[in-house]
């Protein structure tokens, strides 16, 4: 479907500028999206993609710039104006009322009268029609919080279509989906485009851009740096445009040389705070000199498994051994003393104290070490010297160990954690979502450090919901579904096979 050249573009953004306080989120942005196309917008975290689209949807007000929809100058000063102009948006964080039914969410704002009765029954039949037209099935009476995220997203799409959207914006829609669900979403988007709708797809996954878009625009640090026809560009070029320099997308690594078993997990069962079994009788080993990756859709027990291994959560039953020595139930300080390093899944929640100086975070957890002080006193100079060395080695920017950690970007914050854990030279490194919310440049760096650990003969256990990451780093892949390890695969296993296992369909 190539749009006819005479038709006015569906969207024209002209000179859009937006500042949040000191942050210049959008700098004089121009963007044209052809009618009836799927237009991708990629960029690293914080590049300003969500901000730009939220301005188009009337959620934020631009400081400067104008908008034309279908060739008409259009003032969009609130979401009502955007809806009237035929724009619908599926936000990165869903805008749903969780204790409402699907139907109530769909009619919110377009109730069709002061009383609900008639609007509700009209919406019910309209949903039926949308369901058959686009294959968007969902029970209209289901309560949102009881639906899986994939279906919640479907409700967001239905909301937009019910309001008659001709332009549909999706902000990082696949972050919460399994590969199979993502494929299904892309099919739906294809159908929508073929019916003449215009789709803007925000993502930071290059593969998705190549698979589904007609054109793609790249944003970097608040600027629109390039727009390409998808058929005329490559993943490598887009990655370079995003980051501003050449990046290696796949880590280069030789074959692994696994030796002795370092970590042993035997029949481990872990329950969460509500007493629900999250890890169900799981057993595996990790040897020195190998990376074992645990793949799975978020919420299938990976977090609880990590917490049990790193001493944060007591297992309900089973055994954990390090170098053959039982360590079940040890707290994290004792485990660290035994040579365990831990890069936690969520650096804000566990890895860092954001209000601390960089140098303080860079010794956190090891601050009792004799290197950093004597008795109850900290040797601040020693801490800062140590921090400076790490900043240098890990290229943490800005190179200032006295700066508050909150003021570093996501990628640099993650490097602070990675540097702290790796520089202790642990025999076993347990890593959760090492590159979540981290820009491509830093991803490349962190991946290389993890492989270097492996090559130095350390055991690495890696948990990630990014299948690409698991496949490119691991020497063996375990797939978790519903708290169980449903299979072990080699890293050259196809994505589809792994995707089916992650969805609990194949073993």
């Amino acid at each position, binding site marked *: 479907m190539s749009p006819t050249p005479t038709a006015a573009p569906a969207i024209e953004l002209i000179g859009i500028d937006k500042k949040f306080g000191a942050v210049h989120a959008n700098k004089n942005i121009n963007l044209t999206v052809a009618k009836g196309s799927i237009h991708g917008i990629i960029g690293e975290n914080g590049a300003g993609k969500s901000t730009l689209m939220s301005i188009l949807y009337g959620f934020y007000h631009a400081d400067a710039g104008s908008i034309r929809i279908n060739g008409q100058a259009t003032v969009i000063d609130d979401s009502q104006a955007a809806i009237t102009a035929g724009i619908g948006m599926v936000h990165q964080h869903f805008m749903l009322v*969780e204790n409402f039914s699907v139907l109530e969410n769909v009619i919110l704002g377009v109730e069709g009268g002061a009383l609900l009765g008639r609007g509700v029954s009209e919406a019910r039949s309209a949903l039926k029609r949308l369901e058959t037209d686009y294959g968007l099935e969902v029970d209209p009476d289901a309560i949102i919080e009881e639906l899986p995220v994939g279906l919640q997203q479907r409700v967001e799409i239905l909301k937009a279509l019910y309001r008659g959207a001709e332009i549909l914006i999706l902000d990082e829609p696949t972050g919460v989906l399994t590969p199979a669900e993502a494929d299904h979403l892309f099919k739906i988007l294809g159908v929508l485009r073929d019916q003449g709708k215009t789709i803007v797809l925000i993502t930071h996954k290059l593969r998705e851009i190549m698979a589904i878009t007609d054109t793609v625009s790249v944003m970097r640090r608040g600027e629109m740096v390039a727009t390409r026809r998808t058929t005329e560009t490559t993943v490598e070029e887009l990655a370079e445009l995003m980051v501003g320099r050449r990046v290696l997308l796949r880590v280069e690594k030789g074959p692994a040389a696994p030796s002795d078993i370092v970590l042993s997990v035997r029949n481990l069962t872990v329950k969460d705070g509500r007493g629900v079994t999250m890890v169900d009788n799981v057993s595996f080993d990790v040897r020195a000199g190998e990376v074992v990756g645990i793949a799975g859709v978020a919420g299938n027990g990976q977090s609880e498994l990590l917490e049990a291994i790193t001493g944060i959560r007591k297992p309900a039953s089973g055994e954990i051994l390090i170098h053959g020595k039982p360590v079940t139930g040890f707290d994290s300080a004792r485990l660290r003393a035994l040579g365990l390093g831990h890069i936690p899944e969520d650096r804000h929640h566990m890895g860092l104290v954001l209000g601390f100086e960089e140098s303080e975070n860079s010794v956190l957890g090891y601050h009792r070490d004799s290197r950093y002080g004597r008795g109850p006193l900290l040797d601040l100079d020693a801490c800062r010297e140590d921090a400076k060395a790490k900043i240098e080695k890990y290229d943490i920017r800005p190179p200032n160990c006295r700066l508050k950690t909150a003021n570093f970007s996501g990628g640099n914050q993650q490097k602070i954690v990675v540097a702290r854990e790796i520089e202790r030279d642990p025999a076993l490194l347990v890593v959760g979502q090492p590159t979540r919310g981290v820009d491509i440049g830093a991803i490349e760096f962190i991946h290389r450090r993890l492989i270097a650990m492996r090559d130095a003969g350390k055991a690495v256990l890696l948990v990630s919901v990014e299948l690409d990451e698991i496949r490119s780093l691991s020497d063996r892949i375990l797939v978790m579904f519903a708290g169980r390890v449903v299979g072990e695969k080699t890293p050259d296993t196809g994505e589809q096979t792994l995707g089916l296992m992650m969805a609990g369909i194949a073993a």
Partner: protein
Amino acid sequence: MENLDLISILGSTIRLSIPLIFTALAGLFTERAGVFDIGLEGKMLFSAFAAAVAAFMTGSPWLGLLAGITVSVLISLIHGFASITNRGNQIVSGVAINFLASGLTAVLGQAWFSQGGRTPPLAASARFTEIVFPYAAELRDTGFLGRFYANIISGHNILTYLAFLAVPASWWVLYRTRFGLRLRAVGENPGAVDTAGISVTFLRYRATICAGILCGCAGTYLSIAQSAGFVKDMSAGKGYIALAALIFAKWRPVPVMLACLLFGFLDAFANFMQGKSVPGIGEVPVQIFQALPYVLTCVLLAGFIGVARPPKAGGVPYVKER
């Protein structure tokens, strides 16, 4: 216990529950819209004072009610201005209103009437008095049902009947109208309302106005229906009890009414036990009974009612740009 007179206890249960029902419903509207309303107590007190003054000056209870509602709505708008428009702390704003109410009503009362913060006693014609239903007098002595009709169904002032009407009316507004749907939505996820093209600010203001009207009825009831004038601090913590009832009822209209009746009953029971002796124990200090509603509130709030999940966006001003 001699003469456990059920009918008269139930009668006073109803009388004591009315201000709670109005006030808790008021809190229901604001809190369901995501605005915490600690200032219920203060609004009630302000409107009690305004109603008593207006009724005294004009001799009309209806003008008293109008004044009570007007003042209460104004105070609600101040709360809205502080916490919705200026995104201030909702608890602080509410507490400030309560202090202001307690102080200002006493000072103005003293300045205007010089009767120790009281307003002058009202004539019956300036008050909402009991409405007697047909045949009530005749049926009064015809057994339990007759007494029930005469003392429980009949014989209350108009605001009492209004309070019981306000319960289904609130339910209907919340669950059957567009306004109610949006109001419940804005208390859970204001982002959903905003992206649906609805103004979060205007919606929350309308919710606080609803609360102002209901609190105005509560205050008016206190000073010109239940009593014949304003007395310093006459709301006596009822605003807080109403908040407790609201949580107890998990922010739903019909359970709110039942919770308020329960608290009213405990209050009535405490009054009834005054000076009476409990068989086998003897006379129990009345303070024990008077403490019961508060003890129950503590016990209930300590988690004996299951999880009371407050509206998710409650207490948080809606801020889009950091």
